[in-house]
């Protein structure tokens, strides 16, 4: 069965890149533009994994992860953050609100797929 991934990013470029890479690996992709939109989309689909950007308007990645973790059925859902930041601070903050792992931009499609496969079954 193919994996379903929800990608949350305010950049169309990034969303398109993710979709292309994930689709190429046979995964289904739902997209959202920011945290608020992400929560809306979550109420209509049940992804196996979420990939979210951190810096977004309206609701950023941290707020989004926190909100997702409050939804019982998604408490253990793998959530990967997408970040260009290399500082440990943001990763630690993301982890403290419940992020599972991270993907560093710019990503190699193979690496992206292997990470998604590693955290989502």
């Amino acid at each position, binding site marked *: 069965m193919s994996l379903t991934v929800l990608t949350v990013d*305010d*950049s*169309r*470029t*990034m969303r*398109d*890149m993710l979709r*292309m890479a994930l689709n190429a690996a046979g995964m289904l992709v739902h997209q959202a*533009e*920011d*945290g*608020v*939109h992400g*929560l*809306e989309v979550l*109420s209509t689909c049940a992804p196996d994994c979420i990939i979210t950007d951190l*810096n*977004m*308007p*309206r*609701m950023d990645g941290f707020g989004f992860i926190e*909100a997702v973790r*409050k*939804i*019982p*059925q998604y*408490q*253990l*859902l*793998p*959530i990967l953050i997408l970040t*260009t*930041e*290399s500082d440990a601070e943001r990763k630690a903050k993301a*982890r403290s609100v*419940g*992020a*599972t*792992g*991270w993907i*560093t*931009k*710019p*990503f190699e499609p193979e690496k992206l797929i*292997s*990470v998604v*496969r*590693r*955290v*989502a*079954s």
Partner: protein
Amino acid sequence: MDQMASIRQTFFQECEEQLQALEEGLMEMDGGDHSSEVVNSVFRAVHSIKGGAGAFKLSELVEFAHAFETVLDEIRSGKLSASHDITKLLLKSADQLSDLVATCRDGASINPASYRQLLDELKQANGSSAGQAEDENWDDIDFTPMTIDIGTPVDADPGQSFQIYFKPSTGAVQAGNEPILILRSLLELGQTVVSCEFSDLPPLAELKVDEALLGFNISLRTERGLAAVRECFEFVEDSCVVRIEEPGATPTPEAGNVTVTAPVALETPTELPPMPKFAEAIAAKAEAAAAEPVVLTAIEGGKADAQQQKQDKSASSASATIRVELDRVDRLINLVGELVINQAILAQSVGQVITSGASDVNSGLEELERLTRDIQDSVMAIRAQPVKSLFQRMGRIVREVADATGKIVRLRTEGETTEVDKTVIESLADPLTHMIRNAVDHGLETTEDRLRAGKSEEGTVRLSAAHQSGRVVITVADDGGGINRAKVLETARRKGLVPSGAQLSETEIDNLLFLPGFSTAAEVSSISGRGVGMDVVRRSIQALGGRISISSKPGSGTVFTLSLPLTLAVLDGVVVSVADDVFIVPLTSVVETLQPEVNNILPLGQGHSALRIREWIVPLIDVGMALGARKTPIDPANSVAILVDTEDRSRCALLVDRIDDQRQVVIKSIERNYGEIPGIAAATILGNGRVAMILDVETITEGNQKSFEAPKRASAGGR
């Protein structure tokens, strides 16, 4: 790769939007708003560009954006204050970033020297972390890959063995790190032997299901090396106990351990509860604990948040717009144009057939006309765009010219939301750029002069837009010294543009600036010079069906006012007949119409005449003669004079056979097929299906004046 190319296109489109947001945010910061919201939006714009640039391996763009972003990050975190100098640097960097994006978009190669200086300034501003930014490899890898590079023989050995101890923490599992998936990813690397350590397990009665208590001893035999092994633990190595040893020896499975060779084996229950149940148990507990309302508040909280920030323009505009190719809109506009024409033809022909007793048909036709008009307005509105994007571009121009002239200038904009047809906006960019350059370069005094005049050292250029009786009015105002009329008049006389004895009013003197070949600057400056004068500006505004006027007050500044049509697609016109042909006179030019009386017509010789209208005497132009539609002049007494206003505020009377109608017409350009025709601006199709030419009032009146002025200029010594 097609898909990649289209993403690339998306990226550059997005860059445009980000650059706009960047400029907008920086202007707000420049205006003193340093709220986190503004700084964050600025940061996000640069950050987004960097992210996309990285994906396309645009390394120069990434490098510059990174330095830029780092400074913004410092400001965001309060480590650096957004002083005036810093804001100025940021604005300059935004301009540079915009240039780099443009270069990348055009596929040209970037000369690193072009941005080196600014890059250094950014790094310097960044002070403390400058060195770090230098060698920071932003293509971040969390663990050091060096270890495997050095230990290359490792890879050569196909049977390298690792002893791994892994004890998941409760936190890691709750963050979605499923231990079984990590074990499974190890299994993909090679052969594993996994033994479970359950020494921490309390007696069943004290067992808490949401606690991670199990540890795993894993012997792994793999060809993939340490990096691949560590990668499996990438997300858990700081939160869980992970020990990886490389003994190099082949592990010997101990008795009683579970040997895992295939995924099936992992799922085989031993004396321990299987892993999936562990996870499910937590989920079940969580579900029990967090009842439904939590879900609702979470989602509604988000919605409330969204609602609250609906005013946030950037947020709401993101979801409320769609992108449509311009071609499609243009096609639609053309079709609606045809529809309008057809509706008019239909109305006219039906009107001729049915004279009475068909009120149903008539009311139906009226309804159709109303609907057509509504559709037309709505379609036109699609092309309408706020002038904001245009105004924003001017910020950069002001900065550049201010820098080059050493003046301190602030650009203030008003009415940025005023909407105008996209084509008008695009065609305005050049003339407006020139006017803004002029305002800063010539309009504003030098800092010393300002101080001497008792003004603040900061000059202001005000750019505003507003709708005014169906047109858009754009003004460019400076608070400089105003036009030096004596100097203007002297220059004009010297250049032979004005006869030496002529007495000119102040307005007439101001309007001399629009004459071809006029330039007040003693030497053509590289900034506003460039071989383009205000005459070219006026010409391009006229080409848009607009007008430009000037007013100036000595000591307090100059105001240029542009009045433009909202659209280039339709125009209100007066339908006139000239020598059996039908022409349209744009209504915006028409001042009044009148029946000339014989004793008000003053012959001037050479076939020219003038018309006295109350206190004025204006040139009288026989349109039929001017266009070559007839050989002999029309008798003015049997014709109609249309008094038109021309650009330089002089007036002219156009003589036509009769006025037929007044209506809105759809403009059809003929330039593409016929080239430029003097006296004709465009064509249209009338209700009866006939083609009518739209008169270009400017060139008709100009042509007439030229024949008047030519001998005069020659006598004044020419130009």
